[in-house]
């Protein structure tokens, strides 16, 4: 693939890897696992000759700790894996959250739990948005729904990570990684490297030494660190992003992220064709979660339908936002299976039927 900004047809994994090089990624550490190995493969071919350090570690544990070291030294660093591999990295992620190390981590999810299957899933929503590792920390979580976003969110991921000194996760799935779509790559050099005065990159005589650690043995100090992190997470709430499609006149609001949002949009089209007024809210940031828009829509819509490729994880955040104002329904498939647009449509139709019956009773 040529390094220019023309339109190309790329797999999601390759588009993400190319974007990382254009975003000025200086180091990548990884370990192969389906369905994301193309990221490592692409970077192995193209990354080194474009000046980045590309290293296949001996394990996921080693890879995440290499990220800790390189990012701690001030480099712009990315790591990628798929569900079981991400589980192995949780300790390092928690340590980096505490030490306030910015990094970008990509999870191209597959079906679980356990070693599971290589088919697409969204089963790691809880792990991504509620911690995963131990302690009170959060990652900013971006959920792409297209190959274009697989590329674009790399830029957003690095920018946000460095702005707040936090980890950012791109939470994709096997289908987004493997599918090909048109993509326009952002130009090289559009994300300049800022000074990182906190980095442990060699001590000049002009300043005190920098210490990056997650060990604060005195609880008073540990609480101070926690309070600082919590202040930061509150500030991060301003970075919330979502896409709202045809919600203005909608009676039924679909809420879905990533690939499930694409499937839901097709169901929306089918339902609108049948005269059912359906809208879609697609959270783009899963943390911070777009609660406010859902609370607001709950005043006008009749019902919600959450569609996920899991047993109902984001569902809990939608329920928190809707606060019992309106019924929240759920349609999910698990273990690498996908809900089809027709399955979602049937769910919409049965909700619409119940509400039609109810409103007749009232009038």
């Amino acid at each position, binding site marked *: 693939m040529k390094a220019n900004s023309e*339109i190309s*047809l790329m797999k999601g994994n390759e588009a993400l890897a190319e974007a990382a090089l254009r975003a000025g990624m200086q180091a990548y550490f990884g370990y192969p696992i*389906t*369905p994301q190995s193309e990221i490592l493969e692409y970077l192995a071919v193209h990354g080194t000759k474009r000046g980045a350090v590309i290293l296949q570690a001996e394990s996921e544990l080693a890879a995440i700790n290499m990220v800790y070291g390189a990012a701690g030294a001030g480099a712009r660093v990315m790591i990628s894996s798929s569900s079981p591999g991400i589980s192995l990295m949780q300790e390092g992620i928690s340590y980096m959250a505490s030490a306030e190390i910015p990094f970008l981590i990509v999870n191209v999810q597959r079906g679980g739990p356990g070693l599971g*299957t*290589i*088919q697409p899933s969204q089963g790691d929503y809880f792990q991504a948005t509620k911690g995963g590792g131990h302690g009170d920390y959060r990652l900013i979580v971006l959920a792409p729904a297209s190959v274009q976003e697989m590329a674009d969110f790399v830029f957003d991921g690095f920018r946000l990570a460095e702005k707040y000194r936090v980890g950012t996760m791109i939470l994709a799935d*096997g*289908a987004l990684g*493997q*599918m*090909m*779509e*048109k993509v326009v790559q952002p130009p090289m050099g559009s994300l300049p490297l800022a000074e990182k005065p906190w980095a442990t990159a060699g001590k000049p005589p002009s300043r005190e030494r920098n210490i990056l650690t997650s060990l604060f043995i005195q609880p008073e100090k540990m609480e101070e660190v926690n309070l600082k992190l919590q202040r930061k997470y509150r500030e991060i709430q301003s970075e919330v992003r979502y896409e709202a499609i045809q919600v203005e006149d909608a009676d039924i609001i679909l809420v879905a992220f990533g*690939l499930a949002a*694409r*499937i839901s*949009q*097709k*169901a*929306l*089209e089918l339902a609108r*064709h049948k005269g059912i007024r359906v809208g879609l809210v697609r959270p783009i940031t899963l943390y911070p979660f777009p609660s406010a828009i859902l609370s607001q829509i709950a005043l006008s819509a009749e019902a919600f339908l959450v569609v996920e490729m899991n047993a109902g994880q984001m569902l809990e955040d939608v329920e928190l936002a809707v606060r019992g104002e309106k019924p929240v329904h759920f349609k999910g498939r698990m273990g*690498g299976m*996908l809900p*089809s*647009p*027709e399955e979602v449509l049937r769910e919409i139709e049965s909700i619409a039927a119940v509400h039609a019956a109810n409103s007749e009773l009232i009038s």
Partner: protein
Amino acid sequence: MSNTYEIIISGFGGQGVLSLGQILAYAAMIEGKEVSWMPSYGPEMRGGTANCIVIISENRISSPIVTTFDSGIILNQPSMDKFFGKIKPGGLLLYEQSTIIKPPAAGTIDILSIAGMKEAQALGSKQVANVVMLGAFLERKPVVSPESVMKALQKVLPEHRRHLLPVNEKALIRGKELVAHAVPAV
């Protein structure tokens, strides 16, 4: 949605079904259309069927995964068994003759049997059977132009395979001829 065309391409791994889909998607992209190419990448690829869904549209494509199709290009019996009932009424099902043991009964869809393997062998390259099928498909459903397909082939074929461009072009033309001169199936 009427501006959207949804195609399933399915066969054994190694028959070039994924690259057939890629060529089609690439050609549509060259023509400025919206495209998506969704491969099966699961355990089914080892010995069973490999398939990809190609969607070509004038508008933004919603789901890259659909369960019914406007057209099917079928290159083995398991794929026929799996997708025969998934072609929309009025749709087209095009299959490779030598690989289908139980030809489908004509019904509400247009069915075409193409001797892709035989024609490819006559052209001296078994590997271009998929392009014969593509040519045949495009003769009936001109969703992209043959010129765009040739441009796409130049992009999709790796450097060390570029010498195969002429035989691919012949295969494309041969496929189109087969359908242009075919007697409609009863």
